[in-house]
């Protein structure tokens, strides 16, 4: 402090404010919101792995007719309950051998299977190829989930927007309906619907969607309520933009994070309900396979032929875990505050 540094005099020329214009420059390059979300999502390793897993499962489901080695519903009673076998590889548990009375026996030989036949995941009690059934079953379960979620969106989002946007008496009335629907346990509604409608894909979708939209409607309404008061929406209203235009141009984009995140939690829920209904026998009717019917069939034979249960159980759990974790990842990506504080 005491020593005064020696500095040449010309360094002390005043610059004045000629380059003051630079001062508003922001240090880091700015990203748009969506770019930022994507960047955060791809930084999250768990979310990326889940996204990859889900993508693989979806692709396999779409390509089911090409990928599945057999017709999933083709019965071949002579080939019933064969254990998994993968080519001629001699991997325990995948070599076609089965424990019978304490001895490991080649089940394929016993069934007089032609040389070279093998079922990677074995066959069920009607001799149907389990791998093919699982591929088709996953496909069906995903279709149920996607359709139910779509119906959810189609009812829940407009309902929430209208309720939140209109406010006042309309809102009160619409919220009363939401309250009543949500105070009835959704499972009961779903089961009642399933009993009344003919079992099948459409009924399951309707049954799941009839209670599922409530959560979405609630979230969207709350968000719309907040957005309504935002300056830019007020400005758009003052300028006389038509409601439809405000909804599509300003509301939906800002609601998208809420909607996407909620969707990610609706999908596993729908998959669960399908599996549950099929498991108790009022879901997808035979002979079609879904993850739920496969589990139900597998459970009956589980004690003696555990492989029939394991495969669908693992696939179902993986889908549930991956969608849940991806939902988490998306929430963190959309709202970094939720994970950083």
């Amino acid at each position, binding site marked *: 402090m005491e020593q005064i540094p020696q500095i040449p005099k010309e360094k002390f020329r005043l610059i004045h404010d000629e380059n*003051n214009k630079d001062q508003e420059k922001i240090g880091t390059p700015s990203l748009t919101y969506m770019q930022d979300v994507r960047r955060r999502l791809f930084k999250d390793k768990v979310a990326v792995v889940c996204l990859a897993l889900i993508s693989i499962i979806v692709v396999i489901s779409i390509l089911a007719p090409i990928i599945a080695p057999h017709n999933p519903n083709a019965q071949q009673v002579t080939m019933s309950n064969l254990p998994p076998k993968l080519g001629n590889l001699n991997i325990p548990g995948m070599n076609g051998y089965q424990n019978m009375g304490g001895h490991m026996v080649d089940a394929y030989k016993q069934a007089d299977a032609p040389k070279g036949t093998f079922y990677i995941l074995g066959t069920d009690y009607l001799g149907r190829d389990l791998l093919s059934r699982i591929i088709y079953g996953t496909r069906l379960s995903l279709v149920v989930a996607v359709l139910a979620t779509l119906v959810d969106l189609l009812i829940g989002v407009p309902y929430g927007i209208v309720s939140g946007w209109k406010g006042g008496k309309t809102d009160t009335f619409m919220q009363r309906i939401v309250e009543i629907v949500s105070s009835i346990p959704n499972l009961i509604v779903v089961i009642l619907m399933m009993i009344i409608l003919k079992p099948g894909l459409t009924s399951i979708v309707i049954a799941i969607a009839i209670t599922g939209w409530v959560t979405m409607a609630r979230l969207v309404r709350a968000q719309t309520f907040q957005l309504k008061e935002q300056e830019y929406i007020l400005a758009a209203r003052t300028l006389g933009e038509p409601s439809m235009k405000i909804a599509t141009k300003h509301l939906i984009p800002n609601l998208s994070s809420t909607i996407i995140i909620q969707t990610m939690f609706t999908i596993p829920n729908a998959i669960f309900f399908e599996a549950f209904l099929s498991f108790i026998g009022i879901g997808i009717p035979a002979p079609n396979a879904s993850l739920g019917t496969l589990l139900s069939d597998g459970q009956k034979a589980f004690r003696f032929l555990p492989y029939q249960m394991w495969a669908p159980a693992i696939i179902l759990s993986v889908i549930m875990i991956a969608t849940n974790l991806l939902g988490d990842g998306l929430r963190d990506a959309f709202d970094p505050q939720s994970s950083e504080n």
Partner: protein
Amino acid sequence: MDKILEVKDLHVDFDTYNGVVHAIRGVSFHLNAGETLAIVGESGSGKSITVRSILQLLAKNGTISKGEVLYHGDDLLQKSDKEMDKLRGNKISMIFQDPMTSLDPTMTIGKQVAEPLLIHNNVSKKDALKRAEEVLRLVGIPNPQARMNDYPHQFSGGQRQRIVIAIAIVDYPEILIADEPTTALDVTVQAQIIDLLKELQQKIGTSIIFITHDLGVVAGIADRVAVMYAGRLVEFGSVNDIFYNPQHPYTWGLLDSMPTLDTNESDRLNSIPGTPPNLLNPPKGDAFAPRNAYAMEIDEEQQPPFFKVSKHHYAATWLLHPNAPKVTPPASILNRFEKFKKLGGNVK
């Protein structure tokens, strides 16, 4: 005078999503026994982080990368968590900015005020609560006996801040750190809280570090003032030095933007143009240079050292270098210089 606290060359870094933020870049100051030191600066200048470093109450992503915090000559940064726990709320305590969120919403205020006593002193719960009641009376909570069992939401903002103060002083701390204690309050309540702090300082003889961005508040409470900008101190001295003989262009800017009794209706209040620098990449020279109308080439190249103005008054600006040109400060500052002369000061 006794230096009870001395901060030397403090550096604090924060790990963030965008990189490391060098929030504090070499801050040194000291606190004398019984005095009130005000640290002034705009938001983001690092004043809160500086005082939080004293108690080591930084957010998890913050680290003190360099420096010393000497309390009676002991470096607090070398102490264990346990030893720090013994000091916090006992020898050194803190008052927070927002009384609406600083109190535990699910605990009665009596228990909250008594808590430091139960942690630090070997007293019975009954005695602690009794003492809490006395302190609540001291800070001006009416009818404390009845209100001990109330919850925070049953009090107004000003009363809550009094309760926060009661918590801080219940164990008669040597040092009281007040982090913008009046910012969240109404102007009338602000004055009451300042008066309360002054009164308490006399009664219990504590030293106060008072953080604020409001120079108007400083005049009423501080003995000495340190001005902070972008993670460094730029000027420090007595209240009179800073208010009537400021040397740093940033201090000029702060004072120039503050209304005084002398301000005529026709006078415009001035503001400092621009925004503080991004501390992810701190500037090489004087951080204030881009906003400084009196900036010189040297300001962009080299950080100015502290130049001595008078015995306890220092300012870090190249304008005080013998080779620097003579500049004319804003009119309101010249008025202040006039006043300083009347006070018997020696304007440079």
